[in-house]
């Protein structure tokens, strides 16, 4: 699989929320388990965290026919092609790997949290103690070693799988066709295509914390794609302009008549 664009397919209709992925992720990445409280949900920790890069979300949902459903969604970095986090990262800590995924070189991270604000999926998390932002890196080190990401490796039901991008997208659409109803593929149509795509059993808007039309935020585009070059042009412009001004126009004459030769004498 080395050297090609890789996509992880999360088939939520096969997920049993065993959370093997959630634990395997922590184990491989040596993230600690923290003391939590039961807050009236199986979903724990309640949200993604600096130590929780992937989280199975639990959601009770009654559909229009009155049928109770319990929706499980493995949340985490979507590894966007058009990744807002990479766009804003000042240090290059966040980068696109050769697999198309979004890697994270923690040693470069300066804890500016720009990525946290930029991410349309609300994924990166800040760790106060180390002043670093952390998120799933698709087990880049495992991919390099031709191993499956820890979460995929742990999945007992085949809800998680990885493969070449086109094959995975094809697989997803095949599955959706088989499932019928509201089933849909989520992820291949926005932010340049994510490298983590879902087969959802319900419409995207049904799911908690899942943006229906995720995009790189306009403010981020305005900032990075418009203001950045513009400020370069402007800054360069004035520097060059001033130089040219000096050359062509010359310094302003602020000496009085004779003053410049009579500086020593004063008035």
């Amino acid at each position: 699989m080395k050297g090609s664009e890789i996509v992880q397919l999360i088939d939520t209709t096969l997920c049993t929320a065993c959370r093997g992925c959630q634990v395997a992720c922590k184990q491989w990445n040596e993230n600690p388990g923290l003391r939590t409280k039961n807050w009236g949900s199986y979903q724990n920790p309640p949200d993604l965290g600096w130590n929780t890069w992937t989280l199975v979300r639990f959601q009770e949902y009654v559909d229009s026919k009155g049928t109770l459903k319990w929706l499980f969604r493995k949340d985490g970095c979507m590894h966007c092609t058009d990744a807002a986090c990479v766009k804003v990262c000042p240090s290059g800590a966040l980068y696109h790997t050769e697999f198309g995924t979004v890697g994270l070189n923690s040693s470069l991270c300066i804890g500016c949290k720009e990525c946290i604000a930029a991410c349309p999926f609300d994924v990166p998390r800040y760790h106060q103690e180390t002043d670093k932002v952390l998120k799933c890196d698709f087990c880049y080190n495992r991919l390099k070693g031709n191993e499956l990401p820890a979460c995929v490796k742990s999945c007992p039901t085949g809800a998680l799988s990885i493969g070449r991008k086109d094959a995975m997208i094809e697989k997803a659409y095949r599955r959706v066709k088989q499932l019928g109803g509201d089933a849909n593929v989520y992820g291949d149509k926005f932010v340049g295509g994510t490298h983590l795509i879902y087969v959802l059993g319900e419409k995207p808007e049904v799911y908690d914390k899942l943006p229906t039309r995720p995009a790189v935020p306009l403010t981020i585009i305005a900032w990075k794609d418009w203001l950045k070059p513009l400020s370069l042009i402007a800054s360069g412009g004035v520097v060059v302009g001033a130089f040219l001004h000096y050359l062509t126009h010359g310094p302003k004459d602020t000496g009085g008549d004779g003053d410049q030769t009579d500086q020593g004498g004063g008035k």
Partner: protein
Amino acid sequence: MIPQKGMIKVSDAFERIVHWCLAISCIILMISGLGMMFHSFNFLAIPVGGLKNLKLVHNFSGLIFIPSLFFGILIWWKEAGVFDFPDDIEWVKCAGGYLWHVDNPPETGKYNPGQKAFFLAVAIFGIIMIISGIIMWFSLSFSAGTVRVMYFLHALGFLVIFPFFFIHLYLGTIGVPGSFPAVVTGYVSRSWCEKQCSKWLREIEEEGKLEVFGEEKTVVEHH
């Protein structure tokens, strides 16, 4: 740079301290900001030992910038924050003679409209920079949408401030010789004054508030 006899006092010590606090913090902020804004300027972090330190430098320079701007606005808003109609319009029409030859540029007060624009840009966008900067610093306490707007404004602030800043730097040094002492010693030559702010000079002389180096303060008594 020792003031010579007959030079005119244009700034007091407090003003000059504020100016330099503002100037230096601004320079550091812009350089460090630039180092973080563009990967190609990441090298700017080398002297401070890495981007992380650069972030700290940026954040803490911001803390100096805040009071500096505050006092700066207090000091200059009257002289630089208010346009003088219609004279200033005339000045703008001929760009103060900076860009093409103008025989007799309109007279200006202590600060010409260019400087006023610079002041207003720094004042307004400085405040925006401070607010957005603080929100960015403590971004986790704000919604992502808010923070994103702040990043935009912060970048916009740079876009506005830097050109003004650089022009100010240029004109304050080699662009207009004789200007620089104004923020060092506080004294400039009378001829500089006559060229740069003749109206002010006149007014202050009339008011008898002119302070000239080497002379006793002239006190004009009105009868």
